[in-house]
């Protein structure tokens, strides 16, 4: 029996040793917290609002249009060399089964329905719960109010972005819940969506502080959004300008007065110009420029303009809202504008290249039009070295308006020092999009470093002879470093042009106000005034000025749609062929037979983006946009 006792003692010890006091299954997560915690703590609630900000464009890093693929490569401004097929409206391939640019969330996409709606849910969740966040002190209570304002602005931004692409949306100010009946939810009309956006903007304006931290929602950002939205709502596209869709409430306003809408747009812009939301002005001088610009003048005007896009610290007076980026490795949002846009001869990806017809639109420094001057309809210039010395304007790239030099990199343009491996090939660090020829034999001797025949990463070379300079920071070596310059989302020049457009469309007494606003933008850029009393001519002036001033910033796609002129401007993108001879002779030739990208405007249905097949399958009650219904 003694043995049994001994044995039992051992067993008891064993069992005791093996059984722990706490139940291992009864533990809380160690790496996360739950929703109650988020809305039970003002710090976490603010962090959740941070998420709403972070995803307001559908992606954590690719903010707004600051992406590898520019939205303007889907217009007559530029060509995206790596993914031209993504701009499906040019390729007659856009449809519910293929959304192209709209089907992607990352660097090669924009206005992604799924991703933006996903953040809409976050924002609605925030707004539905923020009032329960404990806030006893006055600063905390003020923070709650302010954060609500921010959330309303974020929601307005998200709805407006989708609305301008898709038309009437599914509109809700409440978070969805699993298990809800989703099959009865339908799209609101274009007008209802507009009103929802305007209501959000108005609520945000009431709740936001006068002095918001740079980068957050602000009253001025609300006002700028309002100006943009109201101008869109006043535009021909949604006011019967596209006859085939005029009666479809999903993509057109029904009834009401277009004039009243232009007035509203005018007033919204004017309110900002009047300083209601803070003092904004164009950077640089808006005085009349000298009658003749020297080369230094041109450079000074160009640099002044270019600085808007490479700001890093506190915003300048023109910036109403911008998105800020930080260096790689810090964990914050980054952009790679230099590597995205820069030439292959700098080990960059050369992705969005201005087209020759776009480059052609930049005026001469005196405000006259640039013309290919052979008069035979060919886009050709030749000049010997002697001729060029005698008359530098023989080069198509000399004597152009300042913004040309800030916006475009062309053959011969000075740019930052070549990377060390290419410095031996080009010690002067000038862009080489042309080829080098022997004057003796007429044979090609070398390929430009920034061409598609370059020794360096030829596949990233421009297909059409240009690179975009505007967003690139010359101090950044794109192959190694990320950009830290802000992406300017709203700036004062846009507001002036919004104002000018509304005024010109209203005509009459307003027209001269519009011309004056255009001239402010022109004078700042070093160009002389426009003078006209003719509404049609004024409209052309306005459209030209938007094209040049806002080049690449993501307005052109909306403008072409708003004005219903996509079909008028679509043409193939062709190659610019440049020969530089060893004796200094030059030849510039835009060869319209050498097609770099075939483009067509096959149907007016492409004025609106389609809702994807996938979404329609899940929600068959949704009506697709005109032309995509099948």
């Amino acid at each position: 029996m003694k043995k049994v006792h001994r044995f039992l003692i051992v067993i008891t010890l064993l069992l005791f040793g093996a059984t722990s006091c706490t139940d291992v299954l009864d533990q809380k997560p160690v790496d996360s917290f739950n929703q109650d915690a988020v809305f039970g703590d003002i710090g976490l609630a603010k962090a959740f609002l941070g998420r709403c900000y972070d995803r307001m464009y559908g992606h954590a890093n690719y903010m707004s249009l600051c992406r590898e693929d520019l939205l303007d490569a889907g217009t007559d401004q530029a060509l995206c060399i790596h993914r031209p097929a993504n701009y499906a409206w040019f390729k007659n391939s856009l449809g519910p089964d293929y959304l192209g640019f709209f089907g992607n969330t990352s660097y090669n996409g924009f206005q992604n329905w799924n991703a933006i709606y996903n953040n809409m849910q976050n924002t609605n969740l925030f707004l539905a719960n923020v009032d329960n966040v404990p806030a006893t002190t006055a600063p905390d209570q003020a923070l709650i109010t302010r954060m609500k304002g921010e959330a309303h602005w974020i929601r307005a931004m998200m709805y407006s972005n989708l609305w301008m692409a898709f038309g009437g949306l599914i509109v809700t100010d409440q978070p969805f819940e699993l298990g809800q009946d989703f099959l009865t939810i339908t799209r609101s009309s274009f007008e209802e969506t507009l009103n929802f956006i305007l209501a959000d903007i108005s609520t945000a304006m009431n709740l936001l502080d006068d002095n918001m931290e740079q980068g957050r929602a602000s009253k001025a950002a609300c006002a700028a959004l309002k100006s943009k939205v109201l101008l869109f709502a006043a535009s021909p596209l949604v006011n019967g300008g596209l006859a085939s869709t005029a009666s479809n409430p999903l993509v057109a306003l029904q009834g009401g007065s277009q004039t009243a809408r232009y007035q509203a747009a005018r007033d919204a812009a004017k309110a900002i110009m009047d300083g209601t939301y803070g003092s904004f002005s164009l950077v640089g001088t808006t005085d009349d420029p000298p009658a003749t610009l020297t080369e230094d003048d041109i450079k000074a005007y160009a640099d002044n303009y270019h600085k808007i896009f490479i700001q890093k610290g506190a915003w300048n007076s023109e910036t109403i809202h911008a998105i800020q980026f930080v260096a790689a490795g810090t964990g914050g949002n980054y952009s790679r504008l230099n590597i995205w846009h820069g030439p292959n001869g700098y080990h960059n990806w050369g992705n969005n290249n201005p087209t020759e017809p776009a480059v052609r639109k930049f005026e001469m420094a005196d405000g006259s039009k640039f013309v290919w001057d052979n008069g035979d309809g060919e886009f050709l210039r030749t000049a010997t070295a002697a001729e060029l010395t005698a008359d530098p304007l023989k080069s198509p790239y000399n004597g152009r308006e300042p913004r040309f030099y800030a916006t475009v990199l062309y053959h011969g343009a000075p740019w930052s020092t070549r990377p060390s491996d290419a410095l031996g090939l080009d010690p002067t660090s000038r862009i080489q999009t042309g080829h080098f020829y022997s004057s003796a034999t007429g044979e090609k001797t070398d390929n430009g470093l920034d061409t598609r025949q370059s020794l360096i990463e030829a596949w990233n070379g421009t297909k059409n002879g240009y690179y975009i300079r505007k967003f690139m920071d010359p101090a950044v070596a794109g192959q190694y470093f990320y950009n830290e310059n802000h992406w300017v989302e709203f700036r004062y020049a846009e507001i002036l042009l919004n104002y000018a457009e509304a005024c010109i469309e209203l005509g009459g007494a307003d027209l001269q106000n519009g011309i004056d606003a255009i001239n402010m933008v022109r004078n700042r850029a070093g160009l002389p005034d426009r003078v006209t009393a003719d509404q049609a001519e004024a409209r052309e002036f306005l459209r030209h000025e938007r094209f040049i001033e806002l080049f690449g910033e993501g307005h052109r796609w909306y403008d072409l749609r708003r004005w219903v002129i996509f079909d008028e401007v679509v043409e193939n993108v062709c190659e610019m062929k440049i020969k530089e001879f060893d004796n200094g002779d030059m030849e510039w030739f835009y060869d319209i037979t050498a097609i770099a990208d075939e483009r067509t405007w096959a149907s007016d249905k492409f004025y609106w983006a389609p809702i994807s097949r996938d979404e329609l399958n899940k929600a068959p009650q949704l009506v697709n946009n005109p032309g995509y219904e099948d």
Partner: protein
Amino acid sequence: MKKTPYCFWSSGPDDFFHKLLMPVKIVVLILFCGLALPAYSLSADYASGSDLTELTVDDPQQMAVSGTVTDATSGDPMPGVNVQVRGTTLGAITDVSGRYSLNVTDRNVTLVFSFIGYVTQEIPLEGRNVVNVELTSEVLDLDEVIVVGYTTQKRANVVGAVTSIPGASIQAIPSASVSNAISGRLPGSVVIQQSGEPGNLGTRILVRGRSTLGSTNATENRNSTYPLVVIDGIIGRNMDDIDPNDIESLSVLKDASAAIYGAQAANGVILITTKKGSEGAPKLNYQFYQGFMTPTIVPQTTNAWQYATMLSEYQDYEGKTRTYSDADIALYKSGADPWEHPDSDWYGDLIKDWTTNFKHTLSLDGGYRGVIYYFSLGFRGDESMYAQSSTNYKQFNVRAKLELPITDWLKTGFDFAGIQNDRTYPRNSASSIVGQATRLLPTQWSFWPDGKPGPDIEYGDNPVVTSTFETGKDEQKTYQLQNTFRVEITPPFVKGLTLRGQFNYDVNNFYRHRFFKPWILYFPQWETAVRDPSTGFITSMDLTPTPRGLSSPENYENYSRRIRKTTNIEAMFVRKFGDHNITLFGGFEQYTNDANDFQGFRKYYISTLIQTLDAGGDAEKNATGGMSIYARKSYIARGTYDFRGKYLAEIVFRADGSLKFPPEGRWGYFPGFLVGWRASEEGFWKDNLAFINFFKLRASYGKMGMDPGSSFQYINKFALTNGMTFGTGRAIEISAYPSSVANPNITWETQTTQNIGFDSKLFRDLIHLNFEVFYNKREDILTPKDASVPNFTGLSLPDENIARVDNKGFEIDAGVHKSLTSDLRIDVTGNFSWNRNEVVFMDEPERAVPWQVRTGHPYGATLLYNCIGVFADDAAVDAYPSLPGAKPGDLIFEDYDKNGVIDANDRILVDNTDAPEVFYGGSIDVSWKAFSLSMLIQGQGKFMVPRYSDNRRGEAGNYFLWQFENRWTPENRNTDISRAYNRGDQYWNFDSRRSTYWYDNMAYTRLKNLVLTYTIPSQIYKSLGISRASIYFSGNNLALLWSAQKNFDPEIANPMQYPAMKTFAFGANVTF
């Protein structure tokens, strides 16, 4: 380009002989020690023990023992059997008639009879002078005990579908991982190697195919299809961390027998048992091999003139400016102008012909008065194929197993293992280095004619340099400690009862240090070129060394720690009541797995000498980290019953409670029922079917689970991360985000398994034939219900237990075993498995056309255009529907719906997936006198994967040779290879319209491995104290006997991945 001598970072000559010499030295050393050990140290150690003194050689009580050894099955005498007196060096070898004789010094010694391929028998002499022995073949031994989960069973009594192989069958195979070495040996298990990179073979294992949704590409524990691996009863250990020499046996539970592992068992269970010692004097064993490796197949790319020709063709077709003139092409072809018209063989320059691997294992075991010990020390290494040695993998193992009896009813045991894995890689991954080697343009310079490395294609990519440590090092070190303490009580007052307690503590530390720096490439200075006046070709030129790849040195350091604790309390009751045999087993198991990790990053190091985090610059830095917990509690039971070994029944049961699931639904119950009938024991069978000397029919039904995914999916979880940047000082806002959306009802996937099979042996064990057929229903598979929740809701959908996949198949395992003469024995075995799964439900969104509905197809069926050829000419383009812009030489897509238009609706579901439905192996084992040969042939059936998915070829990348040869040209119109193309420009490119053109069948049959062993006659070394010595040659991936595509290794199935290696190894095995 010809390979040039290049010694900028020379790491010394790659000394073939040095490597060969080292093991030889070790053998000599061991021989020396082996002589000394028995004579000095061990006898000294045991001198105080009383029993051993009786063994001293000069004891006068000598007596002669003799006998005959015969084969238990055939009755034939067995020559060459090693007969040894346990604990001594005394022994003899049987002669031609199987007879032996020897003198012993003690009447009570134990004789050990061993012969390769047979079960070693230990027979106490007990005073006899004649001991006759029948040895039974190892492979089919009915008394063999196999591990079936928590307990062991005699093979004859196993009623589950359990496959088992002895560790010995994989020990000599020169493969760097255990998982890779078992391929083809286990019926019902698909084992595919996904890379040949040292330390990173990425072996994929599927037991009975794929029964669930989800990727199979990741390796162990990271996906929902990998089987559960249990090593010495502990879940969560990695089988590749074990030295194959330490493996006693490996079993796979495939049917309801796996239900004993409950909620984790649905993908099958692999059980590995490591060796323990055996009673007797210390036995020292040393085994080594030195292997020489070369890639099985190096994918061929076009050379310079071929590439320039093909690209020019494309540019001509499209009216684009040509990159290369005809004169250029002629110069590439002639090779007359290497400075300006090089012909680089990037892959050839990247690799060397032969590289090496090796393994050394030293083990010591023995026992005395119940104290049994086993120690082993293992060291193995695997070098890369890169010409400049860099990537390498090393593994160090220490393992100890001790059994320590305390009293006659109390036994304790302690297991310890220490494992260190060192992986060292250059900055770029193998797939990047090798992939780039197939991509870089042959018209650029891998090396300049003067031997300096050429410029990069982009990002510093020049594989001849990025494959070296010039780019910095990625050092990954895993340190593991595995400790188990056991207590076993056999209460003397309950006969047949055993109680066991076990506590296990595994620590896994991982440290990764990635210190990268810019590397130097050489760029041309054309203006310095010296030209040969007669030809105009450059004869020499200055080159500028230029740092590329990174702007400054940068450092990432990771540290992570994982602690697994397992506690088991078990009771086992084994009793025989007349003809009724009963075993009962009950147990409790608790498992916890806690992990945390952090990572730091800095750059702008002013020097590469100090590579610590604090030495970095302040401009860019980052620190991140995380934590996770997991816990499980389980109650386990098994009962078996048999009547005279004839009628067999077994019930297994497990209740699992998992931290992953909500408290109210946390517990799951997994039963299994198995029955067996050994019909060959019946009288009628013996009367009528005696030629089938063994027949056992088995059937099982059970339920198992699978609990993939992270813990706490039942709670709406939020986590913190970086958000946008605000303020003029640009501070990064912290953002809180919903990291997972709750599914309050989340639970495991369940699988019901039905299995019927039989084991049989015919003609007195001459033939064995086993067969299994199974049907698995996997339900409650976690997948989002995305078909019914529109995206506009913005709801991130939780995984819900909704999908269902059925899987069925069969396995055959057969063999012939015959001793042809007394010297010659042959075993031929083969196994074949087939399975097919079908998605029964997956909440699939509505599809445009019925033939694109995935439900009803195997999981992983791919939606592809069906490429039915290449347009021969314009007439062919006009004659068949095509996409806009189609030209002669473009691919013809089948107009599946015959509506005259090629559109998305023409895509069809191709049912051949990346999980082969057929997998087979066959082995031949021959032993003749002192030689034995073991050979394994292995293969797989149709396995469809993209031949590659690189969209850069054309202007930005080289073509493969198979795209060049027989491509469409205006002169070669009738072909199935497309015309020259560029990147993603054609409508039929891989990215925009994926078609069957880009997919290849990876079916193959290969000579997987071969081991030829020669046992050196013991007379030669007996006097040295060596009891057994053999040398062997072995090989792995030796020959591809047949392959559906021949351009790259079909098992790796990707020409841009590190290829599989063919290995030849020489080794020796010495036992003292």
